[in-house]
């Protein structure tokens, strides 16, 4: 008989979501289909043209933003739709639920962004990164920031009746500072900037992650109740 030896409730909730996702593929299928469809459209739209560095960096984050919007709300919406929210209320503290869902979204987003970036390199020949270290740090910080925001927004919209529409609408103003910083840092990575030159953008991203995580941790108790 399989025995659980997870050290904390948070990790058990993460593992529960991870195994559930592998079986149901709620978010995974939505994310994969979105990335493939969007990149195909971009590929056909560009054709033989050579878009500027700004456009290439912007397009990459448009794909990442909307694919996150199509899949990441599932973490809370699926619990609400299946009626298992009360079950979670009865077994775990709000903090365990929040961080369990956050780790799940983070793992999902990191995997999806690795796939998206590899595909982007493959289908967009003009997308050449000259400063690989800046690019990796940007992608990592951008993914963490996106996951932190998307998790708390998913918890907010899960109780509403217009979940699909509300999610990107509510996310956009909250994610705008993050998107502006990551697009700028990605542009710097393409142009071959050093880490020192891009450190200003990294500081913005790190501050954003800290503020959003702290605010989410405080707010989640109120969102989770009633």
């Amino acid at each position, binding site marked *: 008989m399989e*025995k659980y030896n997870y050290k904390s*409730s948070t990790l058990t*909730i993460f593992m529960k979501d991870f195994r559930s996702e592998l*079986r149901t593929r709620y978010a995974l299928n939505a994310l994969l289909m979105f990335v493939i469809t969007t990149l195909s459209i971009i590929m056909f739209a560009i054709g033989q043209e050579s878009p500027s560095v700004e456009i290439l960096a912007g397009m990459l984050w448009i794909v990442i933003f909307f694919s996150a919007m199509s899949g990441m709300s599932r973490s809370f919406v699926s619990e609400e739709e*299946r009626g298992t929210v009360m*079950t979670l209320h*009865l077994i775990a503290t709000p903090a365990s639920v929040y961080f369990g869902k956050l780790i799940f979204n983070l793992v999902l987003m990191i995997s999806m962004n690795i796939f998206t970036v590899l595909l982007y390199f493959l289908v967009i020949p003009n997308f050449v990164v000259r400063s690989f270290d800046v690019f990796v740090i940007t992608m990592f910080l951008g993914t963490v920031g996106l996951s932190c925001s998307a998790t708390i927004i998913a918890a907010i919209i899960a109780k509403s009746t217009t979940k699909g529409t509300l999610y990107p609408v509510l996310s956009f103003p909250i994610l705008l500072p993050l998107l502006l910083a990551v697009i700028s840092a990605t542009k710097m990575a393409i142009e071959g900037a050093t880490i020192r030159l891009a450190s200003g953008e990294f500081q913005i991203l790190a501050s954003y992650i800290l503020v959003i995580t702290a605010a989410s941790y405080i707010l989640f108790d109120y969102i989770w109740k009633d």
Partner: protein
Amino acid sequence: MKTNIKIEAINIKKVFNRTTVFSNISFILEEGSALAIAGKNGSGKSTLAKIIAGVLTPNAGEFIFSINDKEIALVNRFKYLGFVSPYLQLYEEFTALENIQIYSGVRKLNFNNKNLSSLFTKVGLFDRKGDPVRTYSSGMKQRLKYAFALLHQPPLLILDEPRSNLDSDGISIVYDIVKEQKQKGSVIIATNDKEDLQYCDSIIDLNVKVNNSNK
């Protein structure tokens, strides 16, 4: 292990969309007793059960949940209670065994094979514990909810419509659980069934409470 549980509700009121579901609900539940919440459909039996469980917040009133004379904070109340109701949903993509393992993992319980086997035997699901919950009948799901509620041996058991979807064997298991729970702690039963009420020591009639509050 016996824990000295005491629950005190003082003038509890709940309002949904400007409609008062109930108000001025007060009661005391002590160790070793069973309390029934009765009332017609829509009188707020399930709402009151959820408020006691800490899942819903009352609009007014005070709720004191104490174990061994120490007040338990709302955020920790779930550790001391088990809850069964027809609207409680378990994870259908997992087997019954996986569900129970998840819940014991989240609750950080040291659960071994012997404990699991005796729990599944108690609720009559031992032979089907490896089947996905989505293949269960509604009665089997209700039995699994009892395993979910009893997993951590809580001092308080809250049963909302305890006989829902159960056959005669299942109902007999429920009454055995209620009798056993009264030896170890307390039980709250939200029901209209006269047979259920026989197992309770006191009754809150929400119809009477609503009538009183309207006067």
